[in-house]
């Protein structure tokens, strides 16, 4: 019984990697263009916005909360950038976007951490508010970005495309913050057992608040990167972005129940989703199929997470000394 459980958990944990392998094998056998370095670079560049979103989402998920408003933050800050900051140099534009999106994240954080509103309702509300504000400032018309911003897409740093540089910078900062600082440890502690963390003297509310600020700021960053890539945004921009972000984080092993996971997984998850999408494009699949495939991947990811959490919970309940089964 003991070893069978361990094998099941190992299998559940390996499921996303097996899925990735399967995707590579299937599309690789269907098209010879798929498994090329050029295509892989392409995949990484396209995955950049979702990867950044997912890294931010990881912080929120680790505290056992959720942020559904990231797509709205992308749309709203994109509108601000395109409508009001067309003439300024891009670093200033990026700064304004980051500050604005961090403020929006702070609103979420305050609602959840200090007013005690369930996070999925609070952020569902701010999702509608954010999209509403964006639609009224843009009058639901398309917003175009100036050449100064779209040219960033072709820019490189030491030969590395700018989008990849952006992801790398975000990833390194997030990884250090989460794995090497007291704040990071506290995030895990709050997510695993909020009561115990509070009793141990951790400022649980403040930690949850800052996780939402990080998620908001990174949503703004993701929006900025995707603005450089697509050049114009419409009223449907950022719809269901929260979905891909959550899926990417969960695929990478971050639990929806808090306390387990990390930013490395978010990167992997974003790559997996984008690889599947890219493969579908390369084999010329019906565009209507894409959402079904994405949804299928998400189902697998969250089902694995749910079953794993359930099993771990059951094991911990049955064994008085839980470390013996680990």
């Amino acid at each position: 019984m003991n070893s069978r459980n361990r094998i099941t958990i190992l299998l559940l944990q390996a499921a996303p990697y097996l899925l990735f392998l399967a995707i590579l094998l299937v599309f690789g056998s269907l098209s010879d263009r798929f498994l090329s370095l050029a295509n892989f670079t392409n995949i990484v560049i396209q995955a950049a916005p979702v990867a950044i979103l997912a890294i931010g989402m990881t912080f929120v998920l680790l505290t056992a909360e959720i942020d559904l408003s990231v797509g709205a933050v992308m749309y709203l800050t994109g509108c601000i950038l395109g409508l009001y900051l067309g003439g300024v140099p891009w670093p200033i534009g990026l700064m304004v976007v980051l500050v604005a999106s961090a403020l929006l994240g702070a609103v979420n954080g305050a609602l959840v951490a200090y007013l005690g509103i369930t996070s999925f309702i609070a952020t569902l509300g701010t999702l509608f508010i954010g999209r509403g504000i964006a639609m009224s400032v843009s009058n639901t018309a398309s917003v175009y970005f100036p050449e100064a911003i779209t040219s960033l897409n072709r820019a490189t740093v030491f030969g590395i495309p700018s989008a990849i540089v952006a992801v790398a910078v975000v990833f390194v900062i997030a990884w250090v913050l989460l794995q090497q600082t007291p704040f990071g440890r506290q995030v895990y502690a709050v997510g695993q057992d909020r009561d115990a963390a509070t009793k141990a003297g951790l400022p649980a509310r403040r930690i949850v608040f800052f996780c939402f600020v990080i998620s908001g700021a990174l949503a703004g960053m993701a929006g900025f990167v995707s603005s450089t890539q697509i050049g114009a945004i419409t009223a449907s921009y950022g719809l269901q972005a929260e979905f891909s972000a959550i899926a990417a984080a969960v695929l990478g092993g971050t639990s929806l129940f808090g306390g387990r996971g990390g930013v490395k997984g978010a990167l992997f998850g974003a790559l997996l989703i984008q690889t599947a999408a890219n493969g579908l494009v390369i084999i010329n699949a019906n565009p209507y199929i894409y959402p079904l495939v994405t949804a299928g991947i998400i189902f697998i990811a969250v089902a694995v997470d749910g079953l794993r959490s359930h099993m771990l919970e059951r094991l911990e309940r049955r064994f008085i000394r839980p470390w013996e089964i680990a």
Partner: protein
Amino acid sequence: MQNLSSWVARNRWVWSLIGVLILWGILSLLTDRVSLHSLSGVATSASFLVLAALGQMFVVTTGRGNIDLSIASVIALSAFVGLIVVGGSDGRIGLGLLAVLGIGLAVGLTNAVLVVLFRIPAMIATLATGYVLATTTLIANRSIAGAVASPALAFVAGGKVGGVPVMFLIALAAVALSSLVLGRLAYGRTLSATGQNARAARLAGVRTGRVTATAFVISSTLAALDGALLSAYVGGAFLEMGAPYLLQSVGAVVLGGSLIFGGSSTAVGTLFGCILLVLIVTTMQIAGLPPGTQDIVQGVVIIGVLALACRPVLRRIARAGPAGARAAGAQ
């Protein structure tokens, strides 16, 4: 005074009724366009929302953060299917109803399996099924404009009996039935028990999984019926048809005084919550506010109400100690 305040605490729907009356009073003072005539329009719009919101209420009552975000897509899909199967003839209404009920049952069972068996958080599971359904609708059909609804269905959805919209009578009946189920029937009691403390309910012999699954089936079935009636009312079906019902159904439940943590719901409150939300939307349409403003106001209202409503609950949980907090905060 003591009696009154404890009565209000037990009957939280009073607040939404007061809200409706105040907003109605302000509206009739400010503009003469709000009249008894427009009242029936508000009642009809609210009725479509009531059916969706009652289903949402059952799901929310099961607690654990359960919510049904697939309602919007179920409404759109069943609107299409209803129009296509009935095809404008009264003779095929039975067939159409069967098809629509089939959709509701299938989606509800899918949600239930995902949530209860696979333990996927309801928010993600229902968002995903909604996503899949929306794509299915997209593949199956683009849009049906100006389709003719069958006369009988059109009468049910848009007709009046003695000046009262038939839809409103249906909504009232649904509210009465839900009230009965929640307050008087065994299922309602087990539903509340599951929402208040699932572990205790299970130990007391309640089959909590089955109770939760039933709530999801009720929600999808009501949404499916709602969609079919809505398509008969507007005489067409389009993809974004159900979209407003996503936030509004949750909003109406919360506004009506049901606890978002589950375990305590009121069907009458949901009714008044629906009327209040529809009044707010109508006000904004009369005022001619720019696009997007409706979403902003609805979001602000819902967050505001929750901010007010969550405080006493949190205080009570804090007093009950960590066990209570864990039960309420657990996903």
